[in-house]
């Protein structure tokens, strides 16, 4: 189109000048959107402040070392003891176990989805994984309670199947969707040339996947692992239904209580120092999660480089 054909009528002679009220309206909208923008920051700050304010007093009263490293949790005894070591260790062991089972399974499934399956089977499997991510945690807990707990009890000849092992099994299943989806992204991001070079050198397809693609995607897969850790350590309801919920030091076939379930199980009836100690447990859990988030961020940043 030639520029001469544009009618000159539409070009305004006066400089553009919006009316006053429109300008004020724009300013107001700008402020409104900015407020919305920073509301997430506000929420994080408020959550942190509330957790610290309500969590610190009990730690002060009990003493930090006794609180963190005490091995006995007896809040209702004559001389109450508030040691949360059993919860911390149970959470750590439970998470570790879940990662040990869930991550290899998840990575292999991600390999299947990205490299091996055809479109139709792959679509079906990834639909299944998506559905798995959406199933409420109480449903996992219920199935664990009815299926896994009795199976564990009978197969290992235990008086009660609600123990750390059952919790690990349930958690391993629950972290699968996040592990799979993040590893999938990581595997897809590996440049095609890497694989082509490996294939051209005579490696088989499977060798290429395991010796070239997975090592090249390792920081993304690490992110998947860290995300899985976050999911497992934060899960409350499902764990509560299958772990037996007694404040023991963790044993693989012993009834245990996680950090999350310690908060959830006593909150409804506790009072006084016991209640405050629960807030302190939440604070400890929050610090765990923040550290995991930090690691996750570092891993992702390194991957981007």
């Amino acid at each position, binding site marked *: 189109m030639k520029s001469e054909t544009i009618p000159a009528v539409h070009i305004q002679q006066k400089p*553009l000048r*919006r009316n006053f009220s*429109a300008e004020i*309206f*724009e300013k107001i*909208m700008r402020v409104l*959107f*900015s*407020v*919305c*923008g*920073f*509301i*997430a*920051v506000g929420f*994080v700050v*408020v*959550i942190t402040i509330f*957790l610290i304010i309500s969590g610190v007093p009990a730690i002060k009263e009990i003493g930090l070392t006794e609180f963190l490293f005490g091995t006995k949790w007896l809040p209702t005894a004559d001389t109450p003891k508030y040691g949360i070591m059993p919860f911390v260790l149970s959470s750590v062991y439970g998470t570790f176990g879940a990662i040990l089972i869930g991550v*290899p*399974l998840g990575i*292999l*499934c991600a*390999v*299947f989805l990205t490299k*091996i399956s055809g479109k139709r089977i792959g679509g079906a*499997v990834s639909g*299944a*994984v*998506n*559905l*798995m991510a*959406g*199933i*409420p*945690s*109480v*449903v996992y*807990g*219920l*199935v664990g309670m*009815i299926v896994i707990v009795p199976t564990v009890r009978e197969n290992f000849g235990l008086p009660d199947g609600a123990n750390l092992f059952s919790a690990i099994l349930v958690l391993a*299943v629950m972290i699968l969707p996040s592990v799979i989806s993040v590893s999938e992204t990581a595997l897809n991001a590996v440049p095609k040339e890497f694989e082509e070079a490996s294939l051209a050198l*005579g490696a*088989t397809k*499977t060798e290429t996947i395991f010796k070239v693609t997975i090592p090249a995607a390792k920081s993304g897969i690490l992110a998947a692992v860290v995300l899985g850790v976050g999911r497992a350590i*934060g*899960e*409350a309801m499902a764990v509560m*239904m299958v772990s037996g919920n007694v404040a023991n030091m963790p044993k693989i076939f012993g009834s245990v209580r996680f950090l999350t379930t310690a*908060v*959830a199980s006593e*909150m*409804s009836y506790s009072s006084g120092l016991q209640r405050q100690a629960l*807030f302190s447990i*939440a604070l400890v*859990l929050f610090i765990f*999660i923040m550290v995991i*988030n930090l690691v996750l*961020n570092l891993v992702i940043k390194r991957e981007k480089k």
Partner: protein
Amino acid sequence: MNENISCARKIKDSILKSLVWFSAAIICLLLAGMICFILVKGLGHISWKFLSSKTSLLNGTVGILPNLLNTLYIIIITLLIVLPLGVGSAVYLNEYAKNKKAVRLIELATETLAGIPSIIYGLVGMLIFVQFCSLGTSLVAGAFTLVIMTLPTIIRTTQESLKTVPDSYREGSLGLGAGKSYMIRTAVLPSAIDGIVTGCILSVGRIVGESAALLFTAGMANEILNPAQAVSKGGAGSTLTVSMYMYAKERGDFDTAFAIAAILLILTLLLNISAKSAAKLLKRGDNK
């Protein structure tokens, strides 16, 4: 070519390959088995009476109407609040913010919120809304808690969708003399509707499945509330998931628990399908 490969390599190769197939199969079998198990155990107990009445210890009947209603109320209240906030936040990040550090800070905060476990939300919701704001244990307090929880989802999906809106839309709108907010309202947001709707559906999924955050904020009552009671201060009640937990763990009534689990499963399936089809249907350019 394959004949040149040594036997050991061939064996290793096929072992690894079968491991991959095995893990995919085991995950599918696990899910299929779980779904069948729940449906078989649960569907038999679902009847019209079960869905349309409340549990009465006097008559010995079990019904989940109050829990269904509570779930619906919480979804509506939460979405009404979180939608403007989340969409506004995404608009700010994508259209207004020029300071890179501010954007990074907000994104960091959003990621942090997404990573906080629901039990901590429950606790903080109890501290802030139930006690500090003295709303009492109520659906409103529960909904407010879920607002914080679902905010990252809405922000993320909306923002991703906003990023794909071509700049020519914005330039065209501004060139026609529209103000910035008018441009956002009429040109940018309608083009990002797919992300907003997907975000809503995902949030509904999270709300339906949430239990730990609601246990101490929305309460465990099983009474039928009308909409006015639902938004009032003392309107406490349990959603489907919370009531399922109570039936299974506290009362040992597994038939009812499985019936609710079946309903939850069907809801999850429907939400999954609708999230997928919404993203497809509403995507720009598909209706050309």
